[in-house]
């Protein structure tokens, strides 16, 4: 293998644009992020070192415009037949350098997919928010505030619970929504974001999907308050905190779409998050391969390079082999998403799409946890050493396995689809 780009992709499926986008991001990673990332952990609160990487990526290179329609100054990727695959490529290339920067960046786009991506474009809201991102001289972040203190990821379990456990409420008063509630841990909280996408219920305790509302809340709206960032095992570039909504008032038309379609677009947001997560993971694994390759080629057992020992070759061959497997299935997950508007495809809120993508996310997460752990063992006395970068990814990718409902929800939604379970 001459280069890690040889890891498999289904070549017929790759968009012409992808190669170019990867090239730009590869350069950003190698010059603006990787040389500094070993000091990111200590920068978790200040973001002094991390900020410039965001500036270059989102503003100078302009990626925070990517999803917006060209008419509004964006790149119009939301209208592309390849949007899932482009999102996957973005996630992979940025994730290779730092999965926390990748998630902070992709989550900025995430809530906006509900109003910017065909077939659900909400032009009025697009016009409202586009200027914030398109004309900005600094990175502009958004967050999707899902998790609530009780119940953790229950809210993402729309399939079974239909929003029943939501405690964040939205009450329509005249031409305004009044939002009240408490959210936890979203990416880009702790004062980072300019805009929140807030899942609420218009009728507490109801599991009628028509009572689910996705409401956009500018973070400078009176009544919005955020806590200090939590200190975590990794992912310093991603800040998380508590968020409180205390009689927060926004215009009625800040609701994404309305009864029914809000629940559907929220259900559709999950595959977006899963496909991006898979991209973060395979991106980190590409970097794992780079670093591992150097170690096994230069360090020895029995005075011969590790990779020339048949038994070690068996171990590292399995690691690289798993990376190839993960990339093939990860890209297929993106293709499933891009089939949503095709005659032979399915809408992304279909339980088949959700079940299959959840399964792939679960599989790739487990493989990442397993192989980063194995790779640290191959490095042995150097495995826990930040200079080798693998341990950083090991700390970060565990978080990816756990977020968005973690393993159990992936397992249940996959099982529910494959075996038509009705009560799990």
């Amino acid at each position, binding site marked *: 293998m001459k280069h890690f780009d040889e890891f498999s992709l289904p070549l017929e499926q790759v968009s012409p644009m992808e190669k170019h986008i990867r090239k730009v991001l590869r350069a950003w990673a190698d010059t603006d992020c990787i040389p500094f990332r070993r000091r990111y952990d200590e920068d978790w609160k200040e973001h002094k070192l991390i900020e410039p990487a965001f500036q270059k990526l989102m503003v100078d290179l302009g990626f925070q415009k990517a999803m917006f329609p060209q008419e509004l100054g964006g790149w119009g990727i939301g209208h592309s037949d390849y949007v899932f695959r482009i999102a996957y490529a973005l996630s992979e290339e940025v994730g290779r350098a730092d999965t926390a920067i990748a998630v902070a960046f992709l989550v900025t786009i995430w809530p906006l997919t509900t109003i910017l991506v065909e077939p659900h474009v909400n032009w009025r809201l697009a016009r409202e928010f586009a200027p914030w991102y398109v004309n900005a001289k600094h990175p502009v972040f958004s967050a999707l505030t899902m998790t609530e203190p009780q119940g953790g990821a229950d809210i993402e379990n729309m399939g079974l619970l239909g929003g029943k456990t939501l405690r964040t409420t939205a009450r329509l008063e005249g031409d305004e929504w009044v939002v009240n509630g408490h959210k936890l841990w979203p990416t880009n909280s702790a004062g980072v974001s300019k805009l929140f996408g807030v899942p609420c219920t218009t009728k507490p305790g109801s599991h009628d999907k028509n009572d689910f509302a996705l409401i956009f809340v500018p973070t400078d709206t009176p009544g919005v308050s955020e806590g200090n960032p939590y200190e975590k095992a990794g992912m310093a570039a991603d800040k998380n905190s508590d968020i409180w909504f205390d009689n927060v008032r926004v215009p009625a038309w800040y609701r994404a779409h309305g009864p029914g379609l809000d629940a559907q677009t929220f259900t559709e947001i999950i595959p977006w998050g899963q496909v991006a997560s898979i991209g973060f993971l395979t991106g980190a694994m590409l970097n794992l391969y780079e670093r591992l390759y150097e170690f096994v080629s230069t360090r020895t057992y029995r005075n011969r390079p590790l990779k020339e020992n048949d038994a070690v070759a068996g171990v590292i061959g399995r690691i690289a082999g798993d990376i190839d497997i993960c990339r093939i299935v990860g890209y297929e997950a993106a293709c499933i998403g891009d089939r949503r508007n095709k005659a032979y495809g399915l809408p992304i809120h279909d339980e088949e799409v959700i079940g299959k993508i959840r399964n792939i996310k679960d599989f790739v997460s487990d493989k990442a946890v397993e192989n980063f752990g194995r790779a640290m063992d191959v490095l042995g006395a150097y495995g*826990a050493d930040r200079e080798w970068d693998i341990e950083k990814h090991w700390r970060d990718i565990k978080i990816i396995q*756990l977020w968005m409902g973690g393993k159990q929800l992936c397992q249940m939604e996959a099982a529910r689809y494959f075996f038509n379970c009705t009560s799990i």
Partner: protein
Amino acid sequence: MNKYLDDLFLYPKSWVDDDALGFAATARAWAEKEILANRLEYQQGYDTLFVEKRKKLILDIGFERLVLPEEHGGYGWNKPSSAPGILTVFTEIGRGDEAVAFIAALKYAVFAIMTMQPNVDTALLGELAPLYFADELKNVALILPGAGLDGENTALFNGRSVPVTLKASPDGYTLSGKNLRPLGPGFTADLFGVVCSDKGGRACLAFVPADAKGVKKGAPLKMTGLNACRNTDISLDKVKIPKSYLINREDVVTELYAWLNLLLGGTSIGGAMNFFEILTNWAENRTIKGKDIMKENPLCAAVLATVAEEIAGARLMAYSMAHIMAQPESWGGVGGSGVFTFAQMLGSRIQQACLNALNKGMELMGSAGYAKEWHVEKHWRDIKTIQSWLCGVGADVPVKMDIARYFYDCKEV
């Protein structure tokens, strides 16, 4: 949780004498009072409190002296038959903080080489004990065989590179080696236990005071875990040591590995048991699907069961190891190929089991699994660090080769 850990995680009690049980109770009390009772405070003031709490355990309680013979101020535990008791004590300390147990384990293992019957080296002990078991904390780090550098041809210990060479000189020995990665607190170490190769290429163990001429320390390293025991690369530039500072009896290195596997096994099991306590508390107070208590959901219960199973299995393996070490007569000595092989085999399985318990259990805790405030992620990072360091190099391959040599008489692996 309404049961005691020892009533849940069964082990052959008959192997642990009352003396050891008493000391284990003291260690448990230390962990409870000094660390677990004020978790957040301990975490936030870690750098300073780590030293304070260790002093209480090591100097006030005198825990470190367990390894010494009575005539050197110890309690007469310096026989292999104490292995199960020692394991029990290290489990209690690891439950409080793996880092405290880890540093203690390294020092214990190195000194066990000169204190354990039948190999008590009174002369050397007479020199070292007063220096390193005095009234302040003294750290020991190890230089073990491991990864070699392509192009360099080093002596080998069971396939692993021994990067430090030993030359005899009229008044003792001279040690040389570059870019050495210690196991343990290399940056703060007062004494190094160095595995080096004599001119015959045979591995032996040398003791190198950190202040000896020619010992060079680098800048502290950033690590996944065990950050309190700060490490750094060192080099030995023609470092002289007296003759008595070298132990070159047959099996000295295998014996060192046997003790490390036992003590670090106890360390990780202790940490994993504390995680079990945190997880139990979590699973009893979380609701999912808007109604079920987490532990009553079958899928979550299955994960919880796996956590308990891994820890219970690891503990039984550790006592099997201790029992095998405790009977050197039946198995050919602590450093013999049988005990060494089983120590390596069980030692790596114990670490993997503890890590797996953490990895699986964290799946149930979402963000609480990796937020520092829940005290789970530290156990996870510390145990992973111990586990990967113990691998040395090449993941489990060197240990597999140790096993293959013993069970199949392989000669060339």
